[in-house]
């Protein structure tokens, strides 16, 4: 049985609760043992890494060390958490001085034995696409999905192991396996503007709008994401964006775990589909999935 | 003190193309340095047979300096790269046998670094003297 250390992170404990629930649900279904890191602490996203390199490395290091001690790889569905964990791991590995400082701060040794993998990679590379296919209860036939990766899952290039930075395919392959059709589009890694979502909302609106419009233009029924921040920009802001660009958008934004959950036969309540601003149920009903 | 100065004997192996020429440059610039160093001209630090250094210490040299071209400048393109590998190993081995690390040195001195050669010899002399005086 595949066993991975699980770092949910703050978003998944609050605004993106549905991501956490669906993640745990599908992993249980697929018999992937997610071992939640006891007393996990903040990954330090954004605030730490723009202020102190040491804090940015030391915060995730705590979790890394725990996983290493258990002999487990570590995963987080949240792209920001994943990015911080991965970058901390890489920085500590590359910089002996930083390593020493980090070890001093956390009072433990880190040997770099644990690998940080995004949940999509765990599913596709470690669990295996064929194994997922075998578990599918309901093929998502006729559903056109735009896979939106965002920035943190794929950048910088070092974190994007076994995938193309400029045209990632991990989620597209998953979608294909589930019987749905991944749309060919070029906005997979465009910026959603999350960095400005609180300070200069108009930028976030503009950028997220571009993404949603492009998805729509390319014929997508829904957008699939792997990041709570992307989700909040694309989903929660969608009504205002639609108003702003004077276009009917109404394109549901789902976490990839939710999409996977649908294929595994779970219902809307199981996957907390009701938590989205853009209600996906009409679409899914129309496609005969719900 | 004079006799003490005389007692220190340093053997210098200088490559013909850079360091020997550099030492010539030291002369042209009239940079004074301790006279304890006796220079042996070799074509290249790659020619430096570690046995010769061991023999020098065996014969009673207090210090040995081997100097060649800066990496990448070797007249024979890569001779000094081979020397750069022999040196740390030999120094470590000699130290294991009880030859103090202050007694054996290597340097890069180019044909234009006359001043540097004088500085290197002064440094080597000071180190050897420190060993002799303070054990």
């Amino acid at each position, binding site marked *: 049985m595949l066993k991975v250390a699980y770092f949910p992170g703050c978003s998944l404990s609050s605004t993106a609760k549905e991501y956490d629930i669906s993640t745990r649900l599908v992993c249980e279904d697929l018999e992937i043992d997610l071992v939640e890191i006891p007393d996990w602490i903040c990954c330090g996203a954004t605030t730490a890494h723009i202020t102190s390199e040491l804090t940015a490395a030391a915060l995730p290091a705590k979790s890394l060390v725990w996983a290493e001690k258990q002999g487990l790889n570590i995963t987080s569905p949240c792209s920001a958490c994943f990015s911080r964990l991965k970058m901390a791991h890489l920085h500590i590995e590359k910089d002996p001085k930083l390593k020493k400082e980090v070890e001093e701060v956390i009072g433990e040794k880190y040997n770099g034995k644990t690998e940080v993998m995004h949940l999509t990679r765990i599913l596709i590379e470690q669990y295996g696409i064929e194994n997922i296919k075998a578990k599918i209860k309901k093929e998502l036939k006729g559903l056109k999905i735009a896979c939106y990766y965002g920035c943190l899952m794929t950048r910088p*290039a070092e974190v994007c192991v076994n995938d*193309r*930075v*400029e*045209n990632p395919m991990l989620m597209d392959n998953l979608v294909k396996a589930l019987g749905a059709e991944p749309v060919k589009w*070029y906005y997979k890694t465009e910026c959603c503007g999350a960095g400005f979502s609180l300070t200069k909302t108009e930028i976030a609106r503009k950028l997220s709008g571009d993404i949603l419009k492009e998805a729509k233009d390319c014929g997508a029924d829904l957008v699939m994401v792997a990041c709570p921040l992307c989700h909040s920009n694309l989903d929660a802001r969608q009504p205002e964006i639609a108003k702003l660009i004077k276009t009917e958008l109404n394109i549901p934004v789902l976490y990839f775990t939710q999409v996977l959950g649908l294929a595994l036969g779970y219902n809307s309540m199981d996957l907390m589909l009701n938590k989205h601003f853009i209600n996906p149920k009409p679409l899914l009903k129309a496609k005969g999935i719900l | 003190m004079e006799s003490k*100065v*005389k007692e220190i*004997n340093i*053997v210098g192996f200088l490559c*013909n193309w850079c360091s*020997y*020429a550099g*030492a*010539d440059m*030291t*002369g*042209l610039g*009239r*940079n*004074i*340095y301790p*006279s304890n160093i*006796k*220079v*042996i*001209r*070799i*074509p*290249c630090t*790659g*020619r*430096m*047979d*570690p*046995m*010769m250094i061991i*023999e*020098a210490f065996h*014969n*009673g*040299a207090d210090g040995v300096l081997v100097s060649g071209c800066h990496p990448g400048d070797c*007249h*024979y*393109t*890569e*001779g000094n790269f*081979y*020397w750069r590998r*022999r040196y740390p190993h030999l120094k470590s081995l000699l130290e294991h046998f009880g030859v103090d690390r202050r007694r054996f040195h290597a340097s890069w001195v180019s044909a234009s670094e006359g001043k540097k050669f*004088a500085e290197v010899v002064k440094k080597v002399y000071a180190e050897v003297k420190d060993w002799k005086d303070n054990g």
Partner: protein
Amino acid sequence: MARIGVFVCHCGTNISGVVDVSRVAKYAESLPGVKVAVDYKFMCSDPGQNTIIDAIKTHNLDRIVVSACSPRMHELTFRNTLERAGLNPYMVEMANIREHVSWVHSDNKELATEKAMKLMEMSVSKVRRSEVLTKMFAPIEKRALVIGGGIAGIQAALDIAAAGYKVVLVEKESSIGGRMAQLDKTFPTLDCSACILTPKMVAVSQDKNITLLTYAEVTEVSGFIGQFEVKIKKKAKSVNSKCIGCGVCVTKCPNKKSLSDFDGRLGPRKAIYTLFPQAVPNVPVIDRETCTFFLTGKCKICEKVCPTSAVDYTQQDELITEKFGAVVVATGFDIYDHSSYGEYGYGEIKDVISSLQFERLISSSGPTEGHVVRPSDQKEVKNVVFIQCVGSRDESKKRPYCSRVCCMYTAKQAMLLKDHYPETQSYVFYIDIRAAGKNYEEFVQRAQNDYGVVYLRGRVSKIYERGNKLLVKGADTLSGAQVEIEADLVVLANGLEPRKGAKEFSQLFHMSSDQYGFYNELHPKLAPVETAISGVFVAGCCQSPKDIPDTVAMASATAAKVCAIFAKEKMEVEPLIAGVNQLTCSGCETCYNVCPYSAIEMKDKEVKRGEVRHVAEVLESVCKGCGVCVGACYSKAVDLKGFSERQILSQVETATMPITNS
């Protein structure tokens, strides 16, 4: 017993002002073997040298020590002196008591004098161990091998042949011409590449001194300067010498399944083909991997249509061995494969093409006969974006170097496009323009001013297909704006890199190459066409990216170097080189591994009667006397003449013993 003379120079007062020279001379007299020791005001002057010659005659000396200035200054002077006195010139050692003593120890005359005595004594010890050395001569095979039939190889071959020496020119394709033959026009004059190249190609084929081996590859090299032995594989062309180059076979060949590499894979190529219409030699070859006959045993159309029965399916690869005295390596370049650029579509977007593909598109002999059309739908183009520095000046792609020609050819291509299609608009994304060369900057200015090419200083972040257009997103760092251009075609300025297999090829000659695979010249400034291997020279882009004029100049330089070797009857070899005592050689190959010049050969040799051993041998004409082998040899089998183990050890011993006066 050696008979040594010691000559101590005052150098005016340069030495004697600090060093008590008479004491040095007196001390010399007490040393074993020293028959005479004198001091003199200027040893290097004519009277000084005559003093030496006289002393040699009077005291029947067989070797001398000159205690004076640096041997780097006057060693040659005194070697000549010895020769005039009838002695072997290598029986002199110099003790440097000026640069190394009087000029640097003027603070203490006593210590300076003692050091001078010591240095002189060390030289006496060394000269006692000196051996008579004689200059050596090696024979020269006056035939040159030129590898690579591009413009560099062509030029080198023509120049060497013009001097009257035989040349073999080896080209792996079926025709010479190389990269230059693929180009449409050349910068900065915009004259047609083929028009200036073709006469040179014809000249090669007509030169009696040049043997042209196309469709051939060098497979093995042994030997050394003057005596290289090279194995060349002549691949089976399947067309013999009866061919008159009429081209009927090519026209009639029904097999056009493969793509033409020469045309950047933009057009088809027959199974029997000539590389391009002006090919030299104009003899087609059959690609046995795609030919229907060779695959299925049926077809034979070319054989049937050939008016001279020149098609010969039974031809075999042929391996020939030839001897050469010198080699010119001109193996050229490949362009950087842009499929590693994700932002440009991983090489998967059909209408994002390489610069070389553009050359073929716009060339009237190319696959589209000069029509610049989109490879995806064959439609004509309106907006074209050129992106520079693709695989050049890019750390992330491990190509930090500038490819030197891209700025110029991009400007040229944009201009040619406008000439052909006045309604088109070109955009060039660049880092900065490098147009150093005669009329180069003016050329780029013309592109901007007269041809209306829009130059945008910045990188492209993304290219993607939107409908049947390409959306090019980039930054214009001069205005600070983000730019989006809807383009029909994107042309990348691919950088230059060594030919695939350049590393393996360099190993044939034991040449060194840099981290990218470009062959290393012996010295970046003073020996730019020589390599560390004597007698092997490099020309053109296999050494580093360069344009046509530089390539041609470099090729001519190699020809001059080759001719300089051939102009001598025999090769003179300095005797200060390494030698192996094969009796004590253990055959461990350490010296063979470390020699920077591949001057060591391993041989199975009878070292004693009845005892054959694997031992090292020094190639005397190749050895440069660095002595790395001596420093590395554990068996102490290899030694360096002039700096022998005996000499250096005796210097070490003398250096460490106190000054003794009897």
